[in-house]
């Protein structure tokens, strides 16, 4: 009898000794328990225990820095414990995930599904028998709404020979492996400008196909803002948006999370001192998932396309009038016996063009360094630039009309074309050709340049110089043709008439730029620009009347005529940007990535038109194709959703999409056949057959 009793008692005792933890406690939306890597511990040693939380689907808890809204979990010591409160160390936090709450506005950091938060536990030196840790786990758990929950949990460990708890020990080890490591390389943050630049160097894990994100420990940066990253041969640089206006004091601390192409994530803890960006850590775009980047195209191929583009630029209405002047200059030079100078003039002209295109490339690299990305056509998103370009076109029109003369005067064929003056004149004609060509470059050459804008600076320069060379090539070749003087027509009155005729395309270009200005800065800016044009004309008229005081006044009026409209144009238009040129006749929606996802989930085909009022090709495509009855009817029959992304003003989301698709600027047309998640990128010049043909094949 007693034996049976004893054995029952023994079984009960053994059963009571075995578990090191109690069963999980249901806090409401999570099952919470304390676990430890050992079931039996020695006095005086420190082991890892952990708070294990299994969350309901779609609910999440927060990281040590919750982000914009939220609170991290904490353990509140209860004094029924047999270990002192000081025995519990802080959590070591595994790498968190992003929890977007409101896209672009509210961002949190935390965990979902399951999280194990390890913490060191110091066993007292005088412990014996068992040690017990009782705590209240106090945590905020959220889905759409938030609920603060508490769970009384406890951990009981026997004191004796160390016995590992295999299952829990393995789990804790797995989660400790997710804790950020110390960063091996160097890190600095340049918080002197906007945006802040976090520069990383010397860490072997950084490659161009990794995603990198910085999770701060505090709130110095905006949590929802994107963090564009560019790479260099030595590392990478992230652009961080400051939160508010307070300058950064001391170091920027946080965790860098790197996500590799195969999905693995790991983190580095960093403390970035303030200082300039490291060399060779910026400029190259990331290569993400299969796009393969522009490396495949090859710089040579790109440069070749740019050369062809430059050749075509010769025919653009912006550039053609100026080049006609060049041609007529050659005619007069040939006629006046300076034919042997033609070659040197050709070379000087080419140099002028190349220098100007190098300056344009420099401006683009500069904008990219300052803002992290660049698109062509950005010059036409800035009111004052458009106003000044319009006035320059107008001024050139006046010159072509003959209102005033400049060095390369046609009339005085003999005297002014002395060789040196002629060379200088050729140089400046080259610069002029590049200046008037600049507004035309983006709209007409977008495809050729799309890939190059995110390449290293050297590639940008090479491609732009190739384009410039293409622009200058016809004249360069022409000037080297032997016996040219025999082929060119004789100078005569026709030259003057032709020159005056070309004033009209220039005035039309000015008119187009005014319409762009109207969309950007409002009709009062347009009025002021016209007033500025009047002032300029007055200045020229005044200067021609002769006399030094008149000329001085004229110079002053000229400067005011340029500067004041530019100032007025810097105020943005009061009216909200209307979706350019589509009007209520055709059903169009504003584009956003979310809307595209919604529509493709519904199985509707989607056509996206990336356009701007200042983009001539876009208007051309609208007129010839997109607004035509045939295409509109076909779209309506196929239930195609027509989305418009209006890039008339700067828009970072649209710029990001253009960059993703490797386009330099607008136009860009994306076609999503019914339900497809990745679009087909259509050519820049559309035709009705092409667009209607898309519907047949989907």
């Amino acid at each position, binding site marked *: 009898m007693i034996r049976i009793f004893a054995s029952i008692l023994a079984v009960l005792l053994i059963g009571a000794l075995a578990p090191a933890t109690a069963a999980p406690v249901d806090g409401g939306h999570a099952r919470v328990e304390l676990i430890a890597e050992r079931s039996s511990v020695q006095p005086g040693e420190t082991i890892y225990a952990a708070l294990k939380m299994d969350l309901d689907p779609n609910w999440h808890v927060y990281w040590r820095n919750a982000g914009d809204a939220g609170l991290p979990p904490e353990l509140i010591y209860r004094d029924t414990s047999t270990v002192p409160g000081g025995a519990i160390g802080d959590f070591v936090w595994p790498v968190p995930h992003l929890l977007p709450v409101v896209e672009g506005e509210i961002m949190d950091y935390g965990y979902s599904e399951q999280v194990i938060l390890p913490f060191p536990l110091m066993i007292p030196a005088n412990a014996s028998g068992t040690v017990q840790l009782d705590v209240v786990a106090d945590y905020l758990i959220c889905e759409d709404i938030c609920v603060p929950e508490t769970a009384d949990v406890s951990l009981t460990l026997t004191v004796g020979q160390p016995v590992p708890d295999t299952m829990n020990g393995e789990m804790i080890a797995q989660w400790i492996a997710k804790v950020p490591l110390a960063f091996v390389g160097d890190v600095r943050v340049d918080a002197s400008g906007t945006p802040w630049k976090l520069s990383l160097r010397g860490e072997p894990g950084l490659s161009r196909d990794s995603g990198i994100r910085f999770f701060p420990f505090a709130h110095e940066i905006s949590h929802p803002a994107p963090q564009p990253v560019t790479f260099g041969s030595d590392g990478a640089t992230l652009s961080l948006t400051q939160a508010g206006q307070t300058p950064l004091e001391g170091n920027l601390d946080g965790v860098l999370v790197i996500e590799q192409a195969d999905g693995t994530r790991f983190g580095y803890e960093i403390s970035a001192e303030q200082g300039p960006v490291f060399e060779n850590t910026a400029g190259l775009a990331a290569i993400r998932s299969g796009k393969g980047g522009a490396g495949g195209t090859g710089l040579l191929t790109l440069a070749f396309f740019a050369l062809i583009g430059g050749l075509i630029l010769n025919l653009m209405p912006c550039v053609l009038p100026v080049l006609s002047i060049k041609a007529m200059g050659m005619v007069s030079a040939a006629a006046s016996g300076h034919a042997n100078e033609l070659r040197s003039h050709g070379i000087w002209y080419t140099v002028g063009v190349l220098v100007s295109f190098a300056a344009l490339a420099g401006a683009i690299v500069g904008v990219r360094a300052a803002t992290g990305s660049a698109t062509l056509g950005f010059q036409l998103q800035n009111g004052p630039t458009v106003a000044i370009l319009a006035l*320059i076109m107008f001024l050139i029109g006046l010159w072509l009309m003959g209102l005033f003369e*400049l060095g390369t005067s046609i009339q005085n064929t003999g005297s002014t074309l002395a060789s040196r003056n002629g060379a200088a004149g050729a140089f400046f004609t080259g610069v002029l050709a590049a200046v008037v060509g600049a507004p035309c470059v983006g709209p007409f050459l977008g495809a050729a340049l799309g890939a190059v804008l995110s390449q290293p600076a050297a590639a940008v320069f090479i491609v732009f110089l190739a384009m410039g060379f293409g622009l200058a090539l016809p004249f360069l070749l022409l000037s080297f043709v032997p016996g040219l003087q025999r082929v060119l027509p004789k100078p005569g009155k026709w030259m003057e008439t032709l020159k005056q005729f070309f004033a009209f395309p220039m005035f039309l270009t000015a008119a187009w730029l005014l319409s762009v200005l109207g969309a950007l800065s409002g009709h009062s800016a347009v009025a002021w620009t016209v007033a500025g044009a009047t002032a300029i004309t007055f200045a020229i008229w005044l200067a021609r009347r002769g006399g030094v005081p008149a000329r001085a006044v004229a110079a002053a009026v000229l400067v005011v005529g340029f500067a004041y409209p530019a100032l007025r144009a810097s105020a943005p238009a009061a009216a909200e940007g209307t979706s350019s040129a589509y009007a209520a006749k055709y059903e169009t929606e504003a584009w956003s990535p979310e809307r595209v996802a919604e529509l493709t989930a519904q199985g509707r085909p989607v056509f996206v038109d990336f356009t701007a009022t200042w983009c001539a090709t876009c208007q051309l495509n609208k007129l010839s194709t997109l607004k035509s009855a045939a295409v509109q009817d076909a779209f309506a029959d196929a239930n195609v959703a027509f989305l418009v992304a209006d890039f008339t003003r*700067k828009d970072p989301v649209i710029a990001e999409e253009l960059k993703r698709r490797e386009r330099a600027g607008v136009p860009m047309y994306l076609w999503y056949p019914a339900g497809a998640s990745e679009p087909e990128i259509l050519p820049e010049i559309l035709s009705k057959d092409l667009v209607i043909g898309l519907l047949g094949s989907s």
Partner: protein
Amino acid sequence: MFSRRNFSLAAGMAAAVALTAGAMIASTANASPLVAPGEPAPAFIGLDSEGQSVALADFAGKTVVLEWTNDGCPFVQKHYAAPPSNMQSLQADAATDDVVWLSVISSAPGKQGHVSGTQANALTASRDATPAHVILDPSGDIGRLYGAKTTPHMFVIKPDGMLAYEGAIDSKPSARVSDIDTATNYVRAALTSLAADEPVEVASSKPYGCSVKYE
């Protein structure tokens, strides 16, 4: 080598290229209203729970407190819990001192905290709250204008229209009522400083609470 004409042409060309390039680089600036202590508080017009139009400009010359709220949020419930009725006592003290208290609800329709005017008035009555107005902002425009991220998120505006305080209601971010007594109430401190014509010590703090339920 350079005749005067050529020189002026050269200067003109250089100016044109430089101007264009410079404008391109300078075009990175963008302007948006800055909401920070020391800056003017953005003007707004909204509809209150009685259907009346309420504008910030209506209260020029008075101290104004903006309280972003959502009655379902545990952090708001902490401050409205009775006892100690933290928010209600702040509102009552404000009313005594002629401070205009505006509660703003920026929850989108269908989201936690979104209420009709009648429901809002019922809530106010049941909680013994005494805001001057409860502004209904279901589109979230006023919330976004101020950059309201959490409920509660508090703004104190001086009589001259400048923002004096922006951020959390007090110094202990938690949902526990027991933390109210031991926390520093930043709103009360700001109002006291303004009444005594002294500078506000803590002009800005990290707000805590549930995220505002925008669309």
